[in-house]
């Protein structure tokens, strides 16, 4: 695959790299992830969305709805914190799509694509930085929840497993957001298209109230809803109740979402040109 020597000038027109090793690809992804996280400083609204809003949700749900739903806010906090963690993880994944769409609209993805770096850097970097963001959000909600009286009643190992499971669930959903962000024309559309499906999905779930209180026709949907499944799994691992069933179902959702949406997002990214 060497070039025709007669058209190659001496010196400068000599590409040094033949291919990109996996190690180099990882370095590129980490650098893009670092840049994505640095962006947060310039976007206070992102901090509000990722940290302040979930905390407001916790306070509102616990103190406004808590009494009505569970009889007292103290009882409700045990039920709702795992639910709000899942709900927030779902909401925060929309940042993936919005960020990718902005980079696309501003030509930043074009710049990355014209550089001799790994093709995977933009998407992998985005998923990596969003993992960090998801972790920060989860830790923040858990901390606020504990201040309000939430207590983990299982072992630390089980609790950690629960948080890892939920972050993995968030990463799987990030691929959905990435596909949306790469498919719509502008960041505003990315924002609304990324959000609209989240409301019915998070509220028609066991995240905030138990499914048995909902009308019969809604219950089958609530039971297969991945958000219910994930909230139940997290409850099992942080508090009590069935663990194996919900965890396996959550893992099945993570695998299914990733298997379907990661290739679609990658394909969309390749077609962008």
């Amino acid at each position, binding site marked *: *695959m060497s*070039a025709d020597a007669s*058209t190659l000038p001496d010196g*400068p027109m000599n590409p040094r790299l033949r291919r990109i090793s996996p190690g180099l690809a990882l370095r590129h992804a980490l*650098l893009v992830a670092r840049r994505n996280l640095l962006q947060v400083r*310039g976007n206070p609204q992102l901090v509000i969305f990722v940290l302040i809003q979930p905390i407001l949700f916790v306070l509102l749900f616990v103190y406004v709805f808590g009494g009505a739903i569970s009889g007292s806010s103290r009882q409700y906090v045990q039920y709702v914190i795992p639910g709000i963690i899942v709900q927030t993880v779902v909401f925060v994944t929309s940042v993936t799509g919005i960020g990718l769409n902005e980079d696309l609209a501003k030509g930043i993805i*074009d*710049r990355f694509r014209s550089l001799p770096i790994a093709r995977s850097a933009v998407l992998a970097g985005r998923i990596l930085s969003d993992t960090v963001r998801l972790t920060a959000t989860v830790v923040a909600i858990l901390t606020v929840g504990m201040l309000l009286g939430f207590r983990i009643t299982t072992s630390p190992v089980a609790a950690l497993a629960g948080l890892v499971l939920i972050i993995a669930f968030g990463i799987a959903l990030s691929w959905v957001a990435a596909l949306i962000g790469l498919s719509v024309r502008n960041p505003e559309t990315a924002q609304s298209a990324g959000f609209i499906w989240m409301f019915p999905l998070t509220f028609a779930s066991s995240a905030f109230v138990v499914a048995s209180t909902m009308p019969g026709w809604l219950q089958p949907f609530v039971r297969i809803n991945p958000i219910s499944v994930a909230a139940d799994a997290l409850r099992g691992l942080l508090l009590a109740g069935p663990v194996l069933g919900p965890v396996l179902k959550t893992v099945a959702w993570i695998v299914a979402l990733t298997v379907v949406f990661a290739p679609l997002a990658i394909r969309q990214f390749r*077609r962008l*040109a």
Partner: protein
Amino acid sequence: MSVAIQAESLAKSFGTTRALDGVDLEVAAGTVLGLLGPNGAGKTTAVRILATLLAPTAGRAQIGGYDVVRQPHQVRQLIGLTGQYAAVDESLSGTENLSMLGRLLGLGKAQASQRAAELLEHFDLAEAGGRMVKTYSGGMRRRLDLAASLVGQPPVLFLDEPTTGLDPRSRNGLWAVIRELVAEGTTLLLTTQYMEEADHLAGHIAVIDHGQVIATGTPDELKAKIGGQVLEVRPANPSAVDRAAGLLVELTGNQATIDRDIRLISVPMPDPAWLPVAVRRLDEAGIIVVDLALRRPSLDEVFLTLTGRPAEAEPLQDGAGHERSAA
């Protein structure tokens, strides 16, 4: 002399739209080619193909002898790209933008910072380096964007309408920097819809319209194509402008350009001997003229002669946006 950029019969269709329709280009190493044409002519599509961002439907292209489709990784090590919109990160500082690119290109932390500092200094952004880019003016962003495409010291540079939307002072500043790069040996492909810009920066010009190269040559050769000189006539009375233009078109057989704001009619005049004829006809028609001059043609007039319409006509379609949705 070696060829840095070469394109043969390059074509690209988006659905039923033929954005590029068989374009041949050749840019010798160390020279500047100006790709000149109106909005929607196919300039951006050509650049995106050469910069490995877009696959051609037909034809082939090489950068430094490497095929843009089969050897994109090699090509990307040779090129720098500055697009129509400043592709810099608003939430990062100028320094962070450049050093991130340096590190992506394999520089160590210290080397990347040093390279960023050099470039900021060179582009007159040293003082603003620590500030977030969202506080920069349009001209500063464009300079940073150009600096960003130079982090890896690419021997081949693509500038897609680098000065569109800039005020004259920022534009002149950017031109000076571009000329310096060329003096240092960079091969440059520049797209522009401004004749003046191509005239200033490019040794060779390819005029592109509807996805085809309709003329090539040096700026002087292109100007010579329309032959001779241009007659400028300014009637005293605004109501006489159309009549005067009609007379001149009839006389020369060429299209006239009319600037109504200043009542100026310009028409190519292949033979200076026609000047007295023109004066006589205007006089016979009772048109009083306050200005009359023969001058060398501008590239705008070249474009008009070649295509039958002004270069800066209404955009036929939004190039970049269209490509994105249709891709």
